[in-house]
């Protein structure tokens, strides 16, 4: 699914090294937690994957294709195969829940019939079937994130990227979002989630990739958040 080879990212003009010699392989259907302190490079890692940023060095393959070499006009087609969820939800405040989700389908030129069929289905899945006519401001944080999730899922992408998706949510709501992500993962999507939430990482026991100052310092199957884990098992790159 994802194959990162010797990737570095340096932000100019101040030459900030965000990532250094990253080597990672993520298989289809995996669920990966990306952990580390703020500024460790988690967001940059994700941005490289959805090509918001280009690597300064190295190769970054998604589904066998080098994302860095993608022509600009092919970038939208890559993004349609990636569902992205953010800490701040990134919803459009002046559009209903339905429209926010339909947005991702319109972009792909889905037919109106298709939109009417798929949006309610995905809203049902995230438990918001009753609220399709609500505006984001009328929803709780957890509900807003469910809309974000629905929008990420509606194109049925094989890869889900989540950048601190529970960062603005209370513990109970966070668990509900996690349950949904896990469900999507079980249905076959690969999930890469950057997070600070140690309790969640410890509870779900997925693969953990820990970043520190731009380097991978730990890559552990069924890992925990903290570095003091007992059985430290480095994953081959």
């Amino acid at each position, binding site marked *: 699914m994802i194959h990162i080879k010797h990737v570095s990212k340096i932000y100019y003009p101040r030459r900030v090294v965000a990532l250094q010699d990253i080597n990672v392989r993520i298989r289809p259907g995996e669920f990966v937690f990306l952990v580390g302190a703020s500024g460790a490079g988690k967001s940059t890692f994700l941005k490289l994957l959805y090509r918001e940023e280009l690597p300064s060095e190295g190769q970054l393959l998604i589904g066998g294709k080098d994302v860095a070499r993608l022509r600009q006009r092919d970038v*939208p087609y890559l993004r349609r195969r990636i569902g992205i969820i953010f800490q701040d939800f990134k919803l459009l405040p002046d559009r209903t829940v339905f429209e926010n989700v339909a947005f991702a389908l319109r*972009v792909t030129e889905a037919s109106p019939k298709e939109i009417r069929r798929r949006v309610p289905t995905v809203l049902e899945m995230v438990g918001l079937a009753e609220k399709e006519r609500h505006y984001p401001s009328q929803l709780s944080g957890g509900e807003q994130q469910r809309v974000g999730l629905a929008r990420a899922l509606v194109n049925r992408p094989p890869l889900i990227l989540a950048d601190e998706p529970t960062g603005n949510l209370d513990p109970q709501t966070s668990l509900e979002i996690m349950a949904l992500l896990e469900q999507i993962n079980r249905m076959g999507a690969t999930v890469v989630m950057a997070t600070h939430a140690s309790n969640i990482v410890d509870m779900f026991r997925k693969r953990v990739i820990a970043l520190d100052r731009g380097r991978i310092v730990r890559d552990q199957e069924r890992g925990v958040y903290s570095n003091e884990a007992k059985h430290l098992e480095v994953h081959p790159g």
Partner: protein
Amino acid sequence: MKPSTWKYILGEAGRGIKKNTLMSVAAVTTVTLSLLTLALVLLLVFNFNHLAGTLESQMQVVAYLDDNLPAPRVAELDAQIKAIEGVSEVAYVTKAEALERLKAEFGVDSDILAAVEDMNPLRDSFEIAAADPEQISAIAGQVAELAGVAEVNYGQEILELLLSLTSVIRYGGAALLVAFILATVMIIANAIRMTVVARRREVAIMKLVGATDALIRWPFLLEGVLLGLAGAVVTAALVWAGYSWVVGAMQRSLPFVPIVAEWQPILLVLALLIVGGVVIGAVGSTISIRRFLRV
């Protein structure tokens, strides 16, 4: 792109127009002002050209003769003039006949001519028509050379005045038009800039969910085009109504002034207005899309 996508794009453009009502109204108003200038200049130029053409076709050379020219010389002159190439008709008008005509023109006010009755100050003349109006000045030049001809007049002053007036309208109008169009393009660009800024977040999200650049740009482009088109339609309606009224009024009170009343040139003006509005709108929004929309 599919029809449903175009419908969506059109809806987004409409949304932009509605959100910035004040700016949209300002844009449509300035488009209307610019296009009205364009229409005014075009219609004036058309009419002046038409007027010049009409006058030209009615023009004749009048050759005034020296006083007391002997009759044989007059007959000789008549023959000489008829021999000039391009002359189609020659008529001899004595000064007595000229005075009668003048009296007829003055009509009820002809009393004032009684004072000059005895000492008729007019001169005998030849009125010469040309087969082709283009040859008028050449004919006038040759007639002026003939012995016994005191002065030649063929209305050149009026024609020259008309032609210079036409070029003033043409160039002055063009300058005014360029200034107005530039201002309009800037105002449309500004309206689109405001939409672009208001939609930064939306554009960012569109990109994240995989919108192509074309899909992101089209609503903004279309918004500018719609504003331009709205201004053009308003202008076309105003021009249609206004010009019909002018034509009607002119034909009633000044029937001898030839005004362009055929539908062809007027439709041409209306078509130009629509095209102009669309182009102004498209150029204005393209400027802002290039400068402010990062896709």
